[in-house]
């Protein structure tokens, strides 16, 4: 059985207690709502996209430590990134969170230049399968916001 320390790493608790990007944007041109009906988590992602780059992001809502921390970290990770880079990052993150993703050596948090940064702390969630959806929720919502933006 996995240990709680793997799940609740200090960096996760820090993001949970002090969430970044937790605000409603005054100016935004993309956004979406997401929810996990099983546990009641809800998240709202607002984006300002300028010249193919996410120049501002707001992540609001409520939920468990994992979904909140994941949303907070996601905001930091995608801000100022070009859309295609965000797309790669999302895939990378979801890959890390899938059960099969375990083998990806690129995810070693000790590895220099690990692309996911703080986010890699969420790897411990993989050992708690019911909680994977919590970590994924902000990302799924981000994807939806980008989908709406691109098709609209």
């Amino acid at each position: 059985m996995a240990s709680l320390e793997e799940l609740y790493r200090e960096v996760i608790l820090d993001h949970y207690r002090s969430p970044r990007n937790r605000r409603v944007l005054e100016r935004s041109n993309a956004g979406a709502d997401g929810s996990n009906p099983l546990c009641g988590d809800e998240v709202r992602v607002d984006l300002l996209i300028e010249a193919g780059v996410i120049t501002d992001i707001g992540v609001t809502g409520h939920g468990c430590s994992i979904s909140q921390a994941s949303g907070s970290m996601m905001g930091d990770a995608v801000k100022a990134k070009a859309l295609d880079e965000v797309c790669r990052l999302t895939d990378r993150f979801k890959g890390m969170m899938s059960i099969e993703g375990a083998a990806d050596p690129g995810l070693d948090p000790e590895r220099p230049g690990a692309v996911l940064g703080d986010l890699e702390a969420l790897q411990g969630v993989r050992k708690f399968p019911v909680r994977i959806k919590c970590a994924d929720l902000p990302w799924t919502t981000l994807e939806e916001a980008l989908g709406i933006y691109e098709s609209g």
Partner: protein
Amino acid sequence: MIDQARIRSDFPILDWEIDGRPMAFLDSACSSQKPAQVIDAMMDALRDSYANVHRGAYTLSQEATEAYEGARRKVARFLNAAAPEEVVFTRSTTAAINLFAYGWGLGNLKPGDRVLISVMEHHSNIVPWHIIARHTGAELSFLDITGDYRIDLEKPEDYFDERVKIVSLSGMSNVLGTMPPIGEIARLAREVGAVMLVDGAQMVPHSPVDVQEMGTDFLAFSGHKMLGPTGIGVLWGRRELLEKMEPMEGGDEMIREVRLFESTWAPVPQKFEAGTPPFVEAIGLGVAVDYLSEIGMDQILEHDRKLTSYALRRLEEVPGLSIQGPANTIDRGGVVSFDIPGIHAHDIATILDQHGVAVRAGHHCAQPLMRRLGLAAATRASFHVYTSEADIDALVDALGVARRLLASTEAVTVR
């Protein structure tokens, strides 16, 4: 007093250790564990004497039929039903409520008619009415709850009038533990000419039931919450109403005669049991009912009450914790839901699980109630006859860990 050591020995899973700690299974309201007696009876039915019921002219099939109908008689006795024919076997509480909603509602409800339920209902006693309302044009109305988590009957005339044709109410809330005054509500229903169903999913497993005294017309419940198997539930109904009710599903067993373009129905209860029934599961439920009766439902109610009282007292020790449900054990069953501000229920459940304490976290299939309470999620501990005070102690200890790990004294700051 129940002999808990003996009882616990019938549930081998309770001896299991998780990470060196004995498991504290506190999710019986979701689904209870099963005693060896129930499991053995099902195994025998599957292995040593298996044949379909109501069909064969041969001995094995005759014996299976006798066992199935014997289970019906046991359930009838357990409920003090007027006759075994009043017991319809279904897949579950949910299936039983849907059978009533379709069988009684689809043909009888008209636009403007009302179905009265309450804000504390489980989804399984809300969503079927959404579906039937859409098919018939009838409307839903809701009994509210009071500040102390009871059904609000201050002004019954606000809820009960001749538009109300059906009243469908939980006998015990799976979130609050509240047990509404069924007799009084049944009287109000009768006065306006409404037919009443009690969702007994939580009530029947935990308290003595006498359907001839209760006042309701129908009662739904599941086997798996009362020490019985999955895949089996019951709709009890007064015979004269069952006889008027339409079947929901068509198929074999429920017919008298089938012609190309029409068919006629078998007498109750077969009319409502289309196809091969879950008869091995019914046999298991019969044994569960024997098991419960031998302990005594009044003893079980008393046991639940003592545990609830102990849990309410111990949980008070947890700083910040607030209880959703009546603060005393009057008309209240053995489910205790709570909330610790700043710690999400889902995190609590994970941390408790790591300490071998199984509880449920979330909206508990009662989203309208959660919205009414202003909560996104709650944590729930629930009991049955095998639950001990030690299980509750384990819960309180693990909540301490959760607080140390997650509760921050600083307010959540925004950077």
